[in-house]
């Protein structure tokens, strides 16, 4: 599903966020990306949906060689990937419902399917009662759930979540994890950057640890491994 070969990323300010990374993630896997703040987790994620380009190396996502991907084909790559952004990226003027529906509108889904599908995912993340509210009326955790709903609404092949439980209380975190596990069990690949030792150590999955832009550990059914 996702292959990186000797990938490095140096930002224009000279910071090297990733240094010679090679990794393979199979279809249907559930992978935690762990590591201290500033290690390069978000940079790793941004390379996958082509928000950033690698300085060096080769990336293949869902059979597309990203170095050869034409600008105009990027949207189609992104339709295969649902992203839960660390900062949510919700539209402040739109309601919860509209924020989620938005992801389907841009890919020209019929209004009837949009309605059915949006209600479905809002129920899944437990926000069906708040579909008419706007983001500023929601708690951080609720906004995060809207972001998750938007990421999964078009049934992408891969869901990438950058700290999806960062702002959630433990109970809600578990609910979110249940949602992610649920779509993973249906065959969706999940990549999740997290600082939650508790989650990683409880729901045991593959763990990739990044430190200073280098993969220092890649372990099936691994632990969080950091003491916080």
């Amino acid at each position, binding site marked *: 599903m996702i292959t990186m070969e000797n990938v490095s990323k140096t930002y224009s300010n000279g910071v090297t966020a990733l240094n010679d990374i090679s990794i393979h993630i199979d279809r249907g896997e559930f992978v935690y990306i762990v590591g201290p703040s500033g290690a390069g987790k978000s940079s790793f994620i941004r390379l996958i*949906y082509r*928000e950033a380009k690698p300085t060096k190396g080769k990336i293949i996502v869902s059979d597309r060689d990203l170095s050869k991907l034409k*600008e*105009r084909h*990027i*949207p*189609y790559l*992104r*339709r295969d990937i649902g*992203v839960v*952004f660390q900062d949510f*990226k919700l*539209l402040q003027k739109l309601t919860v419902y509209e924020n989620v529906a*938005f*992801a389907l*509108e*841009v*890919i*020209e889904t*019929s*209004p009837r399917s949009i309605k059915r599908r949006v209600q479905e995912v809002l129920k899944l993340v437990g926000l069906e009662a708040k579909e008419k509210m706007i983001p500023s009326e929601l708690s951080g955790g609720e906004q995060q759930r809207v972001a998750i709903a*938007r990421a999964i609404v*078009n049934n992408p092949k891969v869901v990438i979540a950058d700290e999806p439980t960062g702002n959630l209380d433990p109970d809600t975190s578990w609910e979110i994890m249940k949602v992610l596990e649920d779509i993973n069990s249906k065959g969706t690949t999940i990549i999740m950057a997290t600082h939650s030792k508790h989650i990683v150590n409880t729901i045991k999955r593959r763990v990739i640890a990044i430190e200073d832009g280098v993969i220092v550990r890649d372990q099936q059914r691994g632990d969080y491994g950091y003491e916080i």
Partner: protein
Amino acid sequence: MKMELLYEINSGVTTAMKFRTLLRHIREGTKNIFRNGWMTFASIAAVTTTLILVAVFLALVLNLDQMARNIEQDVQISTLIDVTADEDQIVQLGEEIEQIDGVAEVQFSSNDNELSKLIESMGDEGQAWSMFEQDNPLNHVYIVEAGVPEETEVIANQIEELDNVENVLYGKEVVEQLFQFNNYARAIGLALIIGLVFTAIFLISNTIKITIIARSTEIGIQKLVGATNSFIRWPFFVEGALLGILGSLAPVAVILGGYYYIYNNFANVINFRFVELLPFDPFAWQLSGMVLVIGAVIGVWGSVMSVRKFLKV
């Protein structure tokens, strides 16, 4: 909802756009118009000013062209006879003219006759000329007709060489003056219009730039969830086209109202052989259509400029 439209945007990819997506773009583009208040108003006003001038200019040039064409088809030459010529000389002149190759008909018209024709052609204002009835300042005239329009000029030149001819008047000469005027009108009008068109395009592109900046977060998120470039651009093209079309509504009203008025009153003011306005139907309608299209093109052009510059993807 099965209807699909083909469209092509910069990328060169042809994609089928669903009809409801087109409706969505129109809806979004219309919303943008209302968001921009004053800039929208300024853009529309600029398009309106420009198009009113375009309309006046086109109406003038096209009518003058038509008149010039009419005159070129004219075979008539007025030969003004010298006031000093006596009756014999006048008769002799008539015979000489008849002998010129290509002359089809020669007709004498006395100065009194010419004056009454003039008074008649001027309508009400012509009455002022009646005071000349006692002391007629006009010449006697031979009205000569060429067999074919192409020979009018050659014949006129030959007549001019004859004795007792004070002057010859024929359409071609009038045409040349008309053309000269027409060329000036064209040059000045064109320069003015080009300046105004660019001002209008600039204002529209500025308005659209404001929309693009105001929606940049939204556009960024649209891209991240997989919107194609054309999907993002379409509402802005719609906004531009709408600004152009809204700006052309007043000019269209001016054309239809103004031309109707002028066309119906013109005949009373000037009643001259060659001078005839293009008929209201279809001319005013065609001109309106043209102005509408020019407005839309100005609008789309303005939005294309901004989209190119500020919607880097």
